[in-house]
């Protein structure tokens, strides 16, 4: 059972933090309701009512979401690499990760130069 103690502790901490945040927010925060605050999401598109014909989404949303995923995946790869970094003998680990980051940067450079980061 020793194995599960860290998991249980982490679970209790997570639950406690969530409960604390929600309760404290509603107890101590100012309550100035307006239209935006009552929306399901404070930014982005209105989920309801559905416009006639399904509505058209600006392609910018997809672009932003895709960029987010690219960098998200990059970080996901970086974490285990950083944890195991001392076990790679020599420069191998560093060079491999540099290659990976350069490849991601190429995509970033392309998006930046071709105006993918301009919202309007």
């Amino acid at each position, binding site marked *: 059972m020793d194995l599960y103690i860290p998991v249980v502790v982490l679970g209790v901490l997570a639950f406690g933090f969530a409960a604390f945040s929600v309760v404290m927010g509603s107890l101590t925060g100012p309550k100035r309701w307006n239209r935006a605050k009552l929306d399901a999401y404070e930014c982005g598109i209105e989920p309801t009512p559905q416009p006639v014909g399904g509505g058209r989404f600006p392609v910018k949303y997809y672009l932003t979401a895709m960029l987010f995923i690219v960098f998200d995946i990059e970080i996901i790869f970086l974490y285990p690499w950083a*944890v195991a970094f001392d076990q*790679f003998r020599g420069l191998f680990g560093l060079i491999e990760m540099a290659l990976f980051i350069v490849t991601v940067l*190429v995509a970033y450079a392309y998006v930046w130069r071709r105006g993918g980061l301009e919202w309007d």
Partner: protein
Amino acid sequence: MNSVSVLAAPEIHAPPVEFSQLAPMLIVFGAAIVGVLAEAFVARPARYAVQFPLALVGLAAAFCWTLWLGFSEKPQHAAADGAVAVDGPTLFIQGTILVLAMLSLLLIAERAQDAFTAQAAALPGSEAEQESMADGGIQTEIFPLTLFAVGGMMLFPAANDLLTMFVGLEVMSLPLYLLCGLARRRRLLSQEAAVKYFLLGAFSSAFFLYGTALLYGYAGSVRLSAISAALSRSGGSETLLLAGVALLSVGLLFKIGAVPFHPWKPDVYQGAPTPITALMASCTVVAAVGAALRVFYVAFETLRWDWRPMMWGVAILTMMVGAIVAITQTDIKRMLAYSSIAHGGFLLTGIVATSESGLSATLFYLAAYGFTTVGAFAIVTMVRDTTGEAGHLGRWAGLGRRSPVIAGIFAFFLLAFAGIPLTSGFTGKFAVFQAAADGGAVPLVIVGVLSSAIAAFFYVRVIVVMFFSEPEPDAPSVVTTATTATAVALGLTATVVLGVLPQPMLDLAGQAATQLFVR
């Protein structure tokens, strides 16, 4: 046990990476990445002048390295910690893909402006589209996209485990989905093709992945040799194994375009820009059949009594449906698509053979068929009227009188597809049928010969239309340029040489087949 040791990862060793053996793929991917940088930093008017030579040099350098790997005496072994098998079949297939990709690239570059849309994002028929066309822009992203696709095609048949194979499959497919939607004329048809290909392709990828997961459940590994080893041990769940093989086969057969997973092929081949159709009909088929060969020859060889009946059925259906439905087609690209389906069936007979001669025959067939296909589609891009390429067969009437040379070469390509002696098609068909017959699949060979006869009917019909009917007054004209002519000439040369003097290439394929890694 304290909590620290639980969190500590097991010792990780840096995997060995044999850069020399992976170099052909790395060169192609590297050229693609430089191409993306060029898209970002080179001024718009100069992009085409940078991209085309870059792509061509990248493919040529990768091909030279493949040749060097193939003919050097150094013993080859699985690279990248066993994830990629750089063996005889891999090198043969990669070399074939690279040459065919170079030929397709000539077509793509030649028609970058008038076969591909200037602004893919513009709504068909909108003012934005008219404007971008009037600007005379070129969507030069097609070059890096092509290189990424070719890199994926090289990895797909070389992969030695199912996950690497899946990565290769996706790297190959994703750029192709995009490229299919870029045709300049008949935009809606092209976008429909792209969406269909994407949705069905994603669906088939899911089948492939699920099959991989089930096989992992059976063998405890995704490595092909480990699956093969698990087969020879008794025990393990038969259900997981057979379901896994079936689902994996669906994914592979979809990419080959075998019946009943073929309906995307005519729509996509017709809608895609013709240079891209040439790339898909030659290189993608080579890559997909190569991957199927590796899976069935390395992982499932000892299981052949279970998957062979299924493959028999699929091969028979593919040959018959491809040949029979092609007869009713009136569009030249759709007809060639059904012809490609039928050829997929002939290639499957080589896989059914499960022998070394089957492997070498299939390799030879792939090379022979690829060259003829690129040449045929090159000619399709040349026959144009005021609305672009003359796709309808009726428009080709009398082409033999207006441009006898081009019509003659096209007729020769069609005869090669039909498998007339002294063309590469005959040698290829003879080799796979002989291997299949030696492997005990005589009924399959009989069906193959029958469907070849049916297929010959519609090939000859096109020849009759070209040579024995009167041209219309506004008949399409043949636009010949140096680059397209080069592609046609190389396709023609290969078709003649592999038909008249096939022995060196057969020897090469045979030698490659002896070096298949099994363990």
